[in-house]
């Protein structure tokens, strides 16, 4: 099953990882900083707006209060009119003419539409109307509906709208020496038009709205039009509150009561307008952040490039050295850590190059020396084979001539001594031949191939089994697996092993030689077991040494080279050869050749 490839930060190259990391960090900082400053600015903007709202509403409230005080004082002055007092005292009989004239005088301009004198019970006594009475009937009814108490006097009453015109009453008590005689109610029409309202709103500031309302919250007006009420309750008076106005805008509002009146003053700021600057600020912050991040990406990219470029050079040079080009170096002109790394890398490469050249030179020298030594050895073995054999042949030859032609003239002892000379010369000849074979092995090319062990062993056994005497040897040869080796050399090994087995079991009456193979740990081990004289295992280490013998020449003839030669052959095949034996109980020789023995 194929493993899914997830995105791995560690899998990225340093060149990508570093800018990515720095950019992520930068992004986090920018986001946190922008968010914090945006909220700070927003809160500050709102706080400033709230303060301004509060102050504005207070000022407007006190301005209205003063206006109210002026009109109330004017009404109060009217109430002090003697004729009016007389008229009320007399229960509406005396000074009626003068009183009506006084009432008329209060309507000194067109905004004063109606003045009425009421007795203590609220019953109209006298009235002066500027326009048609029926037209103002609803206002008059509302005046009548008012339960007059001394508490309500000296106040500006609630606002009324009639045919899209705003009216409000000024109610004052008429007193005489602190005795209430009646009430004077004057209605004023608001003459403001939409243009003046707009101008006033502009004075307050953009997106601000100013409203007058009755203290029961039922009606709001900007002086020209009436509007549905704002959600004002007693708790929100003197406090800031937020709501969605009739236009559907979220607004912050401040409500203030106006003293001497039944009015409330409401100032609204549009939240959206207030925060316009803040959102503009946020927009700028986002633009600046984007620019910062872009700059960050470019700077870190350049930075990481300036770090990774020499690193890449180093990687290139290192891989070049790894590939065997020891003269590679990097060119980095900097004094920082990377520069130092490159500097020491170059030194190291130089050292390696020097060592490599030196090594190659040494190897060439040694190879030449070895070749020379090998040649000398060859010349030496050539000399040995030629020059040692010549005198030996002479010794042997002349001894034989002596024996053949002068035997009769020599005594028995002389003949015996001549035989000794001949056998020793023969022995020495064998020794020289074996030694040369041993020395030659080192120079021989090994020809690997499939070796049929059964064929070789049977032919070697047939060749070596003594023919002349009655054959007392018993061979037990099992099936032998083939191996991959040099056939001639392996044959030589079998010759040595079989002839040894025959030689060392020759003194038995029933010599038994067993040849076979067994698989141990996946490798075939060939063995040859005899029931001969064997040997003591404490001499086993001498078994495979050149000229090392474990038996006397008089007991068993031999040169002491056969086993050394066999070991050398097996070593050439990366195999192993060893023996197990005990004196008089025979010996078993093992050897193994691994399947992959080609050096």
């Amino acid at each position, binding site marked *: 099953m194929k493993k899914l490839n997830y995105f791995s930060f560690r899998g990225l190259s340093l060149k990508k990882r570093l800018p990515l990391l720095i950019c992520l960090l930068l992004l986090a900082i920018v986001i946190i900083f922008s968010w914090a400053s945006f909220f700070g600015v927003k809160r500050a903007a709102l706080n400033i707006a709230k303060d301004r709202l509060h102050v504005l509403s207070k000022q407007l409230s006190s301005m209205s209060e003063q206006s109210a005080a002026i009109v109330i004082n004017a009404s109060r002055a009217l109430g002090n009119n003697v004729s009016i007092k007389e008229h009320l005292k007399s229960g509406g009989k005396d000074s009626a003419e003068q009183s009506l004239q006084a009432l008329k005088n209060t309507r000194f301009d067109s905004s004063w539409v109606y003045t009425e004198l009421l007795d203590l019970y609220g019953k109209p006594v006298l009235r002066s109307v500027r326009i048609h009475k029926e037209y103002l009937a609803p206002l008059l009814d509302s005046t009548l509906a008012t339960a007059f108490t001394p508490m309500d006097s000296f106040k500006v009453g609630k606002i009324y709208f009639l045919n899209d015109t705003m009216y409000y009453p000024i109610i004052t008590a008429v007193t005489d020496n602190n005795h209430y005689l009646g009430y004077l109610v004057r209605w004023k029409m608001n003459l403001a038009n939409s243009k003046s309202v707009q101008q006033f709103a502009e004075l307050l500031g953009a997106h601000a709205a100013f409203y007058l309302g009755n203290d029961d919250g039922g009606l709001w007006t900007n002086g020209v039009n009436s509007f549905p009420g704002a959600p004002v309750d007693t708790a929100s008076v003197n406090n800031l509150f937020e709501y969605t106005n009739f236009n559907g805008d979220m607004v912050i509002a401040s409500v203030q009561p106006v003293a001497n009146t039944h009015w409330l003053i409401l100032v609204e700021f549009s939240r959206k307008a207030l925060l316009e600057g803040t959102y503009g600020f946020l927009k700028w912050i986002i633009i600046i952040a984007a620019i910062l991040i872009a700059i960050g990406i470019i700077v870190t990219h350049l930075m990481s490039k300036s770090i990774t470029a020499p690193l890449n050079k180093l990687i290139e040079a290192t891989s070049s050295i790894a590939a065997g080009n020891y003269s590679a170096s990097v060119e980095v002109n900097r004094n920082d850590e990377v520069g130092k790394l490159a500097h020491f890398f170059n030194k190291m490469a130089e050292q390696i190059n020097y060592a490599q050249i030196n090594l190659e030179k040494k190897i060439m020298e040694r190879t030449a020396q070895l070749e020379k030594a090998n040649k000398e050895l060859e010349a030496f073995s050539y000399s040995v*084979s030629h020059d040692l*054999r010549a005198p030996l*042949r002479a010794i*042997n*030859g002349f001894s034989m001539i002596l024996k053949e032609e002068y035997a009769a003239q020599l005594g028995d002892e002389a003949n015996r001594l001549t035989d000794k000379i001949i056998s020793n010369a023969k022995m020495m000849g064998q020794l020289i031949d074996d030694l040369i074979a041993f020395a030659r092995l080192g120079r021989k090319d090994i020809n690997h191939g499939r070796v049929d062990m059964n064929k070789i062993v049977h032919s070697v056994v047939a060749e070596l089994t003594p023919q002349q005497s009655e054959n007392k040897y018993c061979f037990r040869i099992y099936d032998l697996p083939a191996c991959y080796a040099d056939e001639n050399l392996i044959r030589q090994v079998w010759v040595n092993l079989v002839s040894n087995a025959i030689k060392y079991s020759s003194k038995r009456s029933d010599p038994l030689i067993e040849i076979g193979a067994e698989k141990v740990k996946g490798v075939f081990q060939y063995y040859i077991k005899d029931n001969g004289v064997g040997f003591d295992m404490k001499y086993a280490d001498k078994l495979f040494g050149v000229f090392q013998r474990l038996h006397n020449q008089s007991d068993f003839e031999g040169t002491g080279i056969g086993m050394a030669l066999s070991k050398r052959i097996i070593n050439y095949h990366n195999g192993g050869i060893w023996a197990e034996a005990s004196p008089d109980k025979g010996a078993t020789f093992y050897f193994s050749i691994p399947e992959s023995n080609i050096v």
Partner: protein
Amino acid sequence: MSKEIEIVLVEDSVDDAEITIRALKKVNLANKLVHLEDGSEALDFLFATGKFAGRELTAQPKLLLLDIKMPKVNGIEVLRTIKSNEATRNIPVVIMTSSGEDKDMVESYNLGVNSYVVKPVQFENFSKAIMEIGFYWLLINKTPVG
């Protein structure tokens, strides 16, 4: 020097030469034998120069027994000279050497040797080999020479 020569033995070792001659004598083949002790003598004899100046060149020997390792001019050089010369090319040359070096053997055959024999150390084998060589080349083999 007018006597007809059948075998030329070129051998620096007097002992080997004696044993060789003795073996040939046993089979009566050493009557027309000359023993030369090195390569330069052999060349002088074959080309009738030096101390053999004046020798008749009409009858070349039937067999040249040549050792390899000899002072002055070795057997390989003698062989090369003989085989590259029209007058001596047909003389049968048998190299008899103590060395069984492949190198020498290969070179000898490349130069056109007629036979290559490694001298056995055993006297019996040596004698037998010499006799067989003598019989073969003198009695059985036929050459255009002589």
